[in-house]
């Protein structure tokens, strides 16, 4: 874009960006109130849910007498599986509902459909990033062992997970404007991902043919990346940042295009 050539284009971009950031900030703040508004424990639920999953799998592992692979501590192993999964799929889930949950906000001319999705994606990313720190920090306090192998890789894994979730959510959210059945299909479509994202196994431990199939799942790549970064003893040989990025680019392109297509329909209703 030749922004330098025409100052009006550049200035409109800057003012637009300022407005958009303000809108996203406001919507995200509002979301913190509404997200768990109905529940008594409020925001605490966000941290209780991953803890519940970690506890369940911990119990199952203990019953089966299984150890976490590659000498990883069991709680940290499960936490690095559950939270990247949640950061991707919970974000997708929340973003998919962004329009239907905030339709009234679209009454304000400054608020666009994309802002709602971005606000939810940002909020979920920040929430689960904080939860990641709290749970693994707590684990470190208990075990007195806190060594992160590669901080940047952990951030990349979580960031890619959040971006993937947001892009997927954007696509689903725009599609749900076109057809109601998308919302119905979302649950059954998301459920297998829970079992296929390496929450309680590593890609390394799978037989080749199963692994080749599982690696189509970008969430598994994110989980593997986070584990690679977190544990010095684990190397995610099969995780590919490029693959996740490709998924994000395709989904984002589809989502942004669809958003243009459906925006008229949203504003009418």
């Amino acid at each position: 874009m030749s922004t330098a050539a025409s100052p009006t284009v550049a200035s409109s971009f800057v003012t637009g960006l300022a407005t958009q950031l303000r809108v996203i900030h406001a919507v995200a703040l509002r979301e913190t109130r509404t997200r768990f508004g109905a529940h008594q424990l409020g925001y605490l639920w966000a941290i209780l849910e991953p803890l519940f999953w970690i506890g369940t799998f911990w119990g199952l592992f203990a019953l089966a007498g299984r150890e976490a692979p590659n000498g990883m501590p069991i709680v940290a192993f499960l936490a690095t599986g559950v939270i990247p999964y949640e950061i991707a799929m919970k974000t997708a889930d929340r973003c998919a509902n962004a329009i239907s949950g905030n339709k009234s906000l679209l009454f304000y001319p400054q608020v666009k459909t994309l802002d709602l999705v971005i606000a939810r994606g940002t909020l979920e990313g920040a929430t689960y990033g904080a939860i990641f720190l709290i749970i693994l920090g707590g684990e470190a306090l208990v075990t007195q062992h806190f060594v992160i192998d590669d901080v940047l890789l952990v951030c990349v894994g979580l960031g890619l997970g959040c971006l993937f979730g947001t892009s997927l959510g954007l696509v689903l959210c725009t599609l749900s404007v076109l057809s109601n059945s998308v919302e119905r299909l979302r649950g059954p479509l998301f459920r297998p991902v829970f079992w296929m994202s390496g929450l309680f196994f590593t890609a390394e431990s799978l037989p080749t043919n199963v692994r080749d199939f599982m690696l189509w799942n970008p969430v598994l790549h994110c989980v593997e990346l986070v584990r690679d970064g977190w544990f010095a003893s684990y190397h995610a040989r099969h995780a590919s940042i490029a693959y996740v990025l490709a998924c994000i680019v395709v989904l984002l392109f589809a989502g942004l295009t669809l958003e243009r297509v459906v925006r008229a329909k949203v504003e009418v209703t």
Partner: protein
Amino acid sequence: MTGPLPAERRSSTAKDLRRLRARRLVLRMSLGVVLPTAIASIYVGLVATPEYESVSSFTIQSADGVSASSVELLFAAMPGSSAGRDVLLVQEHVRSRAMLQHLVEAHGWLEHYQDADVDWFGRLATDATLEERYEHFLDKVQVEHDTQSGTLTLLVKAYDGETSKRFADAILAASEAMVNTLAQRAREDRIELAQTELDRAESRLTAARTAVLAAQNEGAELNPMASAAAILELRGELEAELARARAELSAMRSTYAPTAPEVVQQQQRVRALERQLDAQRGRLAGDEGRGLSEAIARFEPLVAEKEFAERAYGSALASLEVARVEAHRQHRYLVTIAPPSSPDAPTHPRFWYAVLTVFVASFFLLGIGTLLAASVREHAQV
């Protein structure tokens, strides 16, 4: 020109706007999509040095034949089966810096990839650090592990078919050498242990035998136990004889006069028997420690030691035999399933694949950028 009609003006400005938009779109597309695609196709199609890929596959076989049972397949990645673990070891070895070092030193790895004929992007810089060389090495040599069949597939990329085959051959040979050393060492360790055990038992047995022999020399008694048994038997017989003689004597005394020649004779017989018995007792117990019981006391531990040593020697011999069989059974060797192919046509880079990837990626990225920028600018129009 006279002033045109307002409707015409509106339509002309609309047309201008549309033309402006179209021109912008064309500019954007040509900069963001056509240009990268063109660059990519020029590079891939004309500049890039084609690469040949040599494919081979191999596995590690153990003499016991069972590399992975059907149950183990379920837990294929659990390093339970040693054959499966060996495959992983070889995979690690192929991907190691030591392998790169070996290729650099013995097979002219650097010379091939730093060749001036290779295009600038693909070429390995002459001043590349060890880490850069290793990254480059991992890019050119790939080894995939199929957990189900336990085979390894080796892919080697080079700038001509001959060389890729040569490198693959070298890697296979080095891996085979490693497997052999590994198996050899395990086998030697095991047999060596059994051999030392056998040597110890042997020297113990020899020592025990010498001690027994020395004691025999000293006491001039070949087998004191047997002599003692003979004496004991003799003594028993003498005692029985004596008892019978005494009984006869007392019977004679009641019928004959005490001076009768029969009685005297019998008395002499009894006395002779008593003397004989005393002599035998003396031989057994002995005076001043020269008797048989002394000799037995000296012999007994030596004989026991000899017996133990014999038994230990026997078991050591058996365990050496077992170790030999076991070592032979656990012998591992590298089996080449498919020897390195000698490719006759380049496989990398794939022209259409690369160009299409660049086209689609740049198109999508441009689309995302445009749409995001537009959505930002929307906010300014309110």
